[in-house]
């Protein structure tokens, strides 16, 4: 992989068919997140005791749940909360991870050591244990729960930006700029940030998928939301209680989550392919003398759940 990386635009990414499909899917999700509750064909909270566990029909395109509520409307109305909370977590992770990731290269060895150990320590916490522990301390709300999710996403951003920054900060043109008297801030802004951006984009897409899975899992466990409010994970959870009446029901929200996550992964892959960025160096959590560089495409968003 050469040191020179073109700064990529949306046009070159969209040339890939997989990216077009992914962007299409994500656009639909974005529309649902923005207008889902207004577009919903029926009231997502309306209970109908005469239409429990119905299969798909013209009136209820995706059937009804255990209270006779329209599943399609509930999914559409639940999109906003699921998507926005995932984005909140990614935003927190991006700020807490990427900024120290770049800074650590320019701030000396003791800062680098400390930042790395904090990142390592955070990686020893399985997400759900950490998030639930934080909600135990701070109170049970989905927005509060997203802060620890974001904190746990930060090490991924940190490792990626640090590795990419290290690569560029040692380039000859950076040395030349420094010799010409450029300040550290100028070097970071002009030479480093633009080159690291594709890596951050890939990680952002992958981490959004991971955050979405975590959000679904939290709402599945009933953390942060009160029952009538529809969320993707919450719908799955109530479906689980009525498996014997409607064994097919969990597949609908499950598929919606999977398609969204798949689209985000495909987008991350496309940006990676087009920019040559995103080799996430997954060194072991604990120190070893061996440094292994994992293949591309394998440090994809995984379910944090």
């Amino acid at each position, binding site marked *: 992989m050469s040191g020179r990386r073109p700064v990529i635009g949306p046009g070159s990414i969209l040339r890939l068919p997989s990216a077009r499909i992914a962007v299409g899917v994500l656009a639909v999700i974005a529309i649902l997140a923005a207008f889902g509750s207004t577009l919903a064909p029926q009231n997502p909270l309306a209970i109908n005791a005469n239409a429990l566990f119905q299969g798909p029909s013209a009136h209820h395109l995706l059937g009804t749940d255990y209270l006779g509520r329209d599943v399609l409307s509930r999914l559409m109305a639940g999109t906003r909360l699921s998507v926005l909370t995932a984005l909140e977590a990614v935003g927190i992770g991006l700020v807490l991870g990427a900024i120290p990731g770049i800074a650590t290269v320019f701030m000396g060895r003791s800062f680098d050591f400390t930042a790395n150990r904090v990142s390592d*320590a955070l990686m*020893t916490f399985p997400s759900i*244990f*950490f998030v639930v522990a934080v909600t135990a301390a701070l109170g*049970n709300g989905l927005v509060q729960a997203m802060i620890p999710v974001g904190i746990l996403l930060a090490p991924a951003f940190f490792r990626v930006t640090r590795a990419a920054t290290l690569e560029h900060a040692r380039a000859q043109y950076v040395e030349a700029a420094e010799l010409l008297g450029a300040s550290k801030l100028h070097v970071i802004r002009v030479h480093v940030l633009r080159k690291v951006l594709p890596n951050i984009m890939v990680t952002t897409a992958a981490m959004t998928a991971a955050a979405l899975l975590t959000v679904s*899992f939290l709402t599945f466990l009933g953390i942060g939301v009160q029952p009538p409010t529809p969320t993707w994970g919450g719908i799955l959870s109530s479906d689980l209680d009525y498996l014997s009446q409607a064994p097919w029901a969990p597949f609908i929200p499950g598929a919606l989550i999977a398609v969204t996550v798949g689209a985000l992964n495909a987008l991350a892959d496309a940006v990676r392919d087009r920019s040559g960025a995103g080799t996430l160096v*997954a060194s072991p959590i604990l120190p*070893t003398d061996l440094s292994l560089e*994992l293949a591309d495409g394998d440090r994809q968003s995984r379910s944090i759940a």
Partner: protein
Amino acid sequence: MTVITLTRGGTADAAGAPPPRRRRGLRVRVALARIGGGLAVLVPIVFLSSFITYCLGALSNSNPAATILGQDAATPAAVARLDQALGLDQSLIVQYWNWLVQALHGNLGRSYFTQIPVSQSISQRLPVDLSIAILAVILAIVIGGTAGTVAAIRRGGWFDRGVTAVCSVVSTLPAFVVGIILVVLFAVSVHAFPANGYVGPSAGTGPWLSHIFLPSLALSLQVASDIARQLRTSLVQVLDQNYITGAKVRGLPYRRILVRHALRNAAGPALVTLGYDFPQMLAGAVAAEAVFSLPGLGQLLLESAETRDIPVVQGLLLVISTFVIVVNLVINTTLNWLYRTDDGMSA
């Protein structure tokens, strides 16, 4: 796909140059320096993660003494007395140090509500998660290892493409969705496995395995797909190396070449993936517990979070992060053993 590089820090020398002969004293010094370097990193991680764990309790705005005393008895004087008894009037660092020293002696404090020792309720639940996690790791290695190896050998064939396709689907499915699918397929439609509950190994190996098999499978699939992808990529590269061709030319049996020469060198990245995924696997265990109604650590965590039982939450987080560190130490040791050098010094 990028090239997988495997470099050995410290002993990296010019390509082809024979390593210098080391004297015995130097060898011991190098080994000690490595252990020291490792500890210099490991010790801060252990302290930091336990400190973060303890601070979560301090962040809480709950008033433990008032909670324990109950509303009627919580006079300011009584609260102050109990705070002193619990050590809550001391500075955060002192509290943390006392807590850590006690924890190292196996004492994690008592629940605010039930007064049951935290270590006791954790050790009651631990076998459930230990069984699921160990079986899940075994399943992930067996399924992922087999799929990755066969895909690499039959590169470009239908099995290879099938593995790639299945892996990309599985990586979009969280453990709790996989768990639900498994329940629907194997427990509700076909009554092949019990849908919920846990039976200890004392009730017989058969019932025990049948109760933990589906949850473990749900946990293992995502890790298995990661291992398969990683192993396939690195094995394909190793199989193209000259020494593999050399071994074939020498007429060694293919099975021996694959196991002794190729897999040994290709296993590293897959093992690192396993270590990386392990925390998420434990998080998935919470999902599996919820789906299969198992009385494990995750259920204990959710119950104690609801009542804000801080000592239980802290104890659980400490035990879990220690578990992650231990598993990663084991993986690192295995890596060092796999890539040991001929002079007997492990890297």
